[in-house]
């Protein structure tokens, strides 16, 4: 089982879903805090789900408040960076650039991609944590 866990993790890095910041998180896990990484990941997905929802609603309204969107994305990018969510972070950066350029279509397109990456990462991390427990 250990080998499978290692393989899942390696593929997450190889495919660029996670970066070295994730390893920083693992450094913080120890015998006294054996589930730290999973706990922090859970917090991240809870937080980011809320932000995604806020952005979705803001975009659905049709009126593009780029400042507000940028502000949501600032938070999202921050926590994505802290957890090592590399692909999600890239999409966040692009989204903010579109906000600054006032490009609504770019925002919509990027956000769609961002949600996809976010969902994929969530699934893969869930697999990883499940495998780690066996």
């Amino acid at each position, binding site marked *: 089982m250990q080998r499978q866990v290692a393989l899942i993790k390696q593929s997450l890095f190889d495919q660029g879903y996670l970066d070295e*910041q994730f390893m*920083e998180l693992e*450094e*913080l896990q*120890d015998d006294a*805090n054996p589930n*730290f990484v999973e*706990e*922090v990941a859970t*917090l*991240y997905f809870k*937080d980011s789900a809320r932000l995604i929802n806020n952005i979705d609603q803001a975009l659905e309204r049709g009126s593009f408040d780029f400042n507000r969107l940028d502000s949501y994305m*600032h*938070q999202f*990018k*921050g*926590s994505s*960076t*802290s957890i090592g969510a590399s692909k999600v972070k890239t999409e966040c950066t692009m989204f903010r650039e579109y906000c600054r350029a006032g490009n609504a279509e770019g925002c919509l397109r990027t956000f769609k991609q961002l949600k996809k990456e976010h969902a994929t990462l969530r699934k893969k991390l869930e697999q990883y944590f499940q495998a780690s427990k066996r």
Partner: protein
Amino acid sequence: MGVVTESQFHVLAVDDSPFDRKMIERLLQKSSCQVTTVDSGSKALEFLGLRESNESDDPNATSTSPEVEINLIITDYCMPGMTGYDLLKRVKESAAFRSIPVVIMSSENVPARISRCLEEGAEEFFLKPVKLADLTKLKSHMMKPKLKKESEKPAAEVKPEIEEKESSVIEILTLHQELDSEQQEPVLSNNKRKSMEEVISTTDR
């Protein structure tokens, strides 16, 4: 390792994001610090014992000394209401607490913001995500004068405020000597800024 065991290093961490609070708490614990986290600048002031407004009805209003001694405040910059910068100012304006070092954290690398904080008296400016290495290095600098003082005066009582201020200056110089040993500029604030830029440029991705 020479770690002071009698008094644990107690840090007050301030961040409005639960995720970031969990991160900084764990990082500090891993650096052998005792941590208290709060979610706003005003709660931080409350914890320290600094009231925002004088409440004459409150029987506790006159008491400003907290039950715990805080050795360091680490705060996020971007927070709703009171920003980390506002908190820094309040702490530095207070006679009772200005000697407590304050570190600012931010996910944005804005040189003007960094300068502003350092000029207002911030000890350090960390770019998020904060790494374990950032904290262990900071802590070793914070602990040095404390260790020195404790070894020189085995029967030390209350330390006068002036002494503590001098030790903060020593900490700053030591920190920057290590960060950039080639630099010999006498101006302290320039050193800090330049060193921070160098630190930031190596950690910025």
